[in-house]
């Protein structure tokens, strides 16, 4: 096969700074519990995942190092990292991992742990949160509201204006619904969500202070 120009050159690895005292030995178990099982001891750091990842060029660590950092307990660094939000859930890594690690699902778990603990800073975290809010409101996606709320929260007017041309084209082609579709009983989704959150969400944890986030303890 010809050299693959789509796999970007991986730059020299930066040194990951951190001290042992910042490590959370329970972190890998927390991720495992969240996923319903995971044994990162099987990961032998071959790098097939990072080599297969379409967005590794935008990442600081890439999936291989993220897997190792989880195993080492580098919760703070991993959960604050933008890498987990550049993961586009393509499952290329999962398909190829010789050790059967569910890497893409680990990345998804890390995203939700980052949100739950209030450590997610990436724009995509905001988008995901707004998406779920709109979903729970109507039961179906209503893109105009999703986009307006996302741009209001994150990218501002400039971001919205940058895509104004596309918006008009989509409108002209009838690709934007002018009114939201609702399911009959939108309350049902709210109830599902409340029942799910009762007891299942992890406690927000403040790694800098080494204790649960105040006021949010349950």
């Amino acid at each position: 096969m010809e050299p693959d120009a789509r796999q970007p050159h991986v730059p020299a690895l930066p040194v990951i700074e951190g001290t042992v005292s910042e490590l959370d030995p329970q972190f890998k178990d927390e991720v495992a519990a969240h996923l319903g099982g995971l044994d990162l001891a099987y990961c032998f750091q071959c790098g097939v995942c990072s080599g297969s990842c379409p967005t590794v060029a935008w990442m600081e660590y890439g999936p291989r190092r993220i897997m190792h950092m989880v195993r080492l307990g580098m919760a703070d660094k991993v959960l604050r990292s933008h890498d987990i939000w550049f993961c586009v859930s393509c499952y290329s890594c999962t398909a190829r991992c010789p050790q059967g690690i569910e890497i893409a699902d680990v990345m998804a778990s890390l995203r939700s742990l980052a949100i739950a603990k209030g450590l997610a800073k990436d724009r995509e975290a905001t988008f995901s949160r707004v998406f779920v809010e709109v979903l729970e409101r109507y039961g179906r996606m209503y893109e105009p509201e999703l986009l307006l709320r996302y741009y209001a929260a994150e990218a501002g007017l400039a971001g919205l204006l940058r895509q104004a041309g596309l918006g008009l084209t989509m409108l002209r082609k009838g690709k934007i619904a002018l009114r939201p579709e609702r399911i009959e009983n939108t309350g049902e989704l709210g109830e599902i969500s409340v029942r799910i959150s009762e007891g299942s969400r992890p406690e927000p944890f403040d790694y800098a202070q080494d204790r649960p986030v105040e006021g949010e303890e349950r």
Partner: protein
Amino acid sequence: MKYAYYPGCSLHASAREYDISWRALCERLGIELVEMEDWSCCGTVHATSVDRLLALALAARNLSIAEAMGLEMAAPCSGCYKNLRTADEALKGDAGLRAKVNASLPRPFEGNTVVRHPLYIILEDIGLDTLADVPRPLHGLRVAPYYGCVLTRPAALHPVDDPEDPQGLDRLLQTLGAEVVPYPAKTKCCGGAVLVSHTDVVLDLTGRLLKQAKEAGAQCLAVACPMCQMALDAYQSQIERRLGERLDLPVLYFTQLMGLALGIDEGQLGLGRLIVSPAKVLARV
């Protein structure tokens, strides 16, 4: 042949042409679609990023509607299909998880439906033999099949195709008379998950794959997912600007190409709703 139809949010809005052409196709092929009553959004990757259990519950709510209908489910959006299929497999395989999710649902998930994608419904339940003599074969059309990521990944418990080198869409297009253009990016992700938040990432990924398809000689792409279609079609002018070159590659749903080959009236296929017009390319067929 009868299926519980889960259109998903896109097919009711931005991707109505996929809905229209899929319905027209079903009518022609004798497939009966019963749209599920009160289906709700599957949550895509975003709900999973926020809360895995909530995402599973949202999927289970929809699965239980199909179960009550006593039918297999047809989900044309690869994102919905992946979410529903993997949730179905996870809940069938893990009684503890099922109990946890069911505790939140008004109707419990029972585990007696199967989630199918229309491409594989056609390949497996209709069969290519039936399509051997289509009235308007796509002779002379060079098509790049684009599977994207989650149509075939993560591998299903009972895989219907290879996760990294699938053949289903290739075989269908060949049977319809089209010339299938091979190119390595056919299962590379378009990045649709971060389309709004990290648009530049998507423009790079889609730019690479469209360029590759073009260089391989493709005149158009065939897709099976509304997210891929949107990223490749609606964003194509932005991709061209970034690449500094013209692509002009129409991105059609496989249902539209199939409808054409079967001689279904073009007005019933929603071709005019595509943003990069396929008119010039299709005129040569």
